[in-house]
């Protein structure tokens, strides 16, 4: 939990653990908040609740059992419990013997989470529904282009493009992207995902539909794809997945930013994440965060808005695309 969820500290406003000095000019009143020693508030601490260690539940149960040892039926209950424990022990032994027969080692059982074997890819994409991606031609989802190229050896992105009746003409950028996506050559023998890209008069956020209701934001499309397709971009199991997620959120905000100053603020944050390293988040290879950031910068920011550090990184991204 290093990374972005670092919370800030606040100064304590109310100090309630100070002893209160009661005035003695008048008569004294009994503290109504304290109920003898069994109450939640001890008299000495005055209004402050501290856990009474003596009355923890464990101790209470112990006390209770001690007091009620002579109750009839208790012995039966104890015997029954013993039986159950014994049966559970037997079950455990049986399962272990089965495990030995099947030669499953405990390390193997955990591993599949991290393995990106083509077999699991095949199985997963078989279940992948066709994706409908609605995009505004003024904000084309460039990340699709990178994904298509980056993952060309493991999965085919089969993209078909449509022009919705709410849009009369495509922008140059959208047209370029469409041509690039359509010109992609499929490789045989690897799984395929069908994406229908619809140029539509939606908001600046690209939205995608898996079943019924649309999910907004290009970064969410990336999150979905990297989870659905196990590949080098999947980041779920990384120790810094939270940091990656917050970079993705910044990319989302860059696209949505309405003013230059608003955008500049997000770009500064992005630059911090890049730091002196090759790729975002201090990584040595291109990751999903780079894909998202590249696309959002290409959509929203003009070249004079980004500093030299980011520009270098941006050019690195372009060589991949």
């Amino acid at each position, binding site marked *: 939990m290093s990374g972005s969820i670092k919370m800030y500290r606040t100064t304590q406003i109310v100090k309630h653990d100070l002893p209160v000095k009661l005035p003695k000019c008048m008569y004294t009143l009994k503290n109504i908040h304290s109920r003898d020693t069994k109450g939640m508030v001890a008299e000495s601490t005055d209004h402050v609740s501290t856990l009474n260690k003596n009355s923890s539940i464990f101790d209470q149960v112990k006390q209770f059992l001690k007091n009620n040892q002579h109750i009839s039926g208790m012995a039966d209950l104890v015997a029954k419990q013993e039986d159950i424990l014994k049966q559970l022990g037997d079950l455990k032994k049986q399962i272990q013997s089965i495990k030995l027969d099947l030669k499953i080692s405990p390390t193997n059982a955990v591993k599949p989470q991290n393995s990106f074997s083509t077999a699991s890819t095949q199985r997963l994409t078989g279940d992948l529904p*066709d994706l409908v991606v609605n995009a505004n031609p003024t904000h084309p989802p460039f990340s699709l282009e990178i994904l298509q190229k980056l993952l060309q050896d493991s999965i085919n992105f089969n993209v078909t493009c*449509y*022009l*919705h009746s709410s849009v009369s003409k495509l922008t140059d950028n959208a047209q370029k992207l469409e041509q690039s996506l359509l010109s992609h050559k499929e490789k045989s023998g690897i799984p395929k995902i069908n994406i*229908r890209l*619809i140029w539509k008069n939606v908001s600046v956020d690209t939205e995608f539909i898996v079943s019924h209701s649309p999910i907004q934001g290009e970064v969410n499309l990336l999150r979905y794809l990297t989870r659905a397709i196990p590949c080098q971009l999947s980041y779920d199991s990384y120790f810094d997945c939270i940091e990656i997620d917050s970079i993705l959120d910044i990319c989302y905000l860059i696209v949505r930013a309405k003013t230059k100053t608003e955008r500049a603020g997000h770009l500064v944050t992005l630059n911090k994440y890049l730091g002196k390293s090759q790729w975002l988040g201090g990584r040595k290879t291109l990751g999903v965060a780079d894909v998202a950031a590249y696309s959002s910068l290409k959509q929203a920011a003009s070249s004079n808005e980004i500093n030299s550090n980011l520009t270098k990184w941006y050019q690195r991204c372009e060589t991949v695309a």
Partner: protein
Amino acid sequence: MVEDKPAENTSSKSALKKEAKKAEKAAKKAEHKQTTSGSQEIVKEEVDVSIGKYGNLPVIKSENKNINRKFITVNELNKKLSNQIVWVRARLHTSRSRGKQCFIVLRQKEFTIQALLSVSDAVSKAMVKFSSSIPKESILDVEARVSEVPNSIASCSQQDVELVVTQLWVVSQSAPQLPLQIEDASRPEKAEEEGLNVRVNQDTRLDNRILDLRTPTNQAIYRLEAGVCRLFRDALTKKGFVEIHTPKIISAASEGGANVFTVSYFKGSAYLAQSPQLYKQMAIAADFEKVFTVGAVFRAEDSNTHRHLTEFTGLDLEMAFHYHYHEVMLTIGNLFTEIFKGLSDQLQNEISIINQQYPAEPFTFLDPPLVLEFNEGRKMLAEIGVEVGEEEDLSTPTEKLLGRLVKAKFDTDFYILDKFPLAVRPFYTMPDPNNPKASNSYDMFMRGEEILSGAQRIHDPVFLTERAKHHEIDVSKIAAYIDAFKYGCPPHAGGGIGLERVVMLYLGLDNIRKTSMFPRDPKRLTP
């Protein structure tokens, strides 16, 4: 002026008398005016100053060729013409007299304008009275001065000007009683809480179709229908199609035998064509390559639904292709895109008029059109728990449901469903080479309702005979059809579109009778 009697034999007796009297009076007055000099007019107060400026015109029998009177259409009347004297021929939409004034609304097609008569030096009391007594829907010739109004007139289409009438002639008078009021017939369909809620039901409309068609909405609907037809013709002609005309009286039923009309044909009997299918295909076999036809199609189906007619206009096309029937399917799909684009570009005004009365969501579509395979459609339906068998046709409710699913996912009201099961298609449909249960056939849908059904046809006589036998069809009865392919025929595919349905669904209307000018259904043969 007494001559106009024969034209009015439709009006009631009393009205007839009244008219005759009025005409006589007018004639007398006219005579009177001609004989008396101007000085006498000033003495007699009762003398009508407007004589010769209003009345009933005799029936125009084209006696006079040389009247050089330029008429302005109502939609041209605007501020630019203010203070000019214009002639307008329009219908009397409504009239309302108030003491010495009479407000009338003139209507020409969907355009309306307010006209005003008030007693003055030039306009007599009698003229105002006369104008308020003209029955609604009469056709008038009006000479008037265009005048700007301070507050725009909300109830008329021409809001910034009105006409100050100087002459008013009745060209053709309407019967005083109307079976339906144009205003009622053009009231918006959405439920309004306040105000009059009178509406005219469909049957009354159809019984008095001529009046009903005068509403702005109907004017717009049929102009849009003409637009669809024109765009269909233009788009296909541009693609190198040839328009052909096919016979409507045929010797054998073309699609199955159950739902044909039989007509007596001299000593024998004949049928009315259910579709130009056979003739389109023969034109292909005769090397026309790409053909289309626009014409009446007859179906003797006794179904009283919102979307069936016994006679409708079919837009049919057939096209030879090189290797794959998708060449044709996509041509048809693009044709639709072109029609939809043309409609929204050229007829936006009509669409908005119709939407005022019949509100509907604007029609959406994708370019290129969305093509789904039948199995994909089945999968989408299965996801929400509706199972359709692999060799089962879609029922009307499932069709609509699928339309809604497609609309939700792709936001398009138009899509193509490809690869229908072979079992639900006619015998001449080409089976799918890769899947014995499927066929090379497609349906196209608008707002979840089928508008076109088409397929690759079998162009090989041997294979066709085999398929016919498989369907247990008597081959001797369709020998003429099979023979058409005997002398070589290019592979071809096509489809037929119902014009009325396309218009209905494009506009989101609820009944096909709204888009057929004089609809024919099992219960209606007139008007």
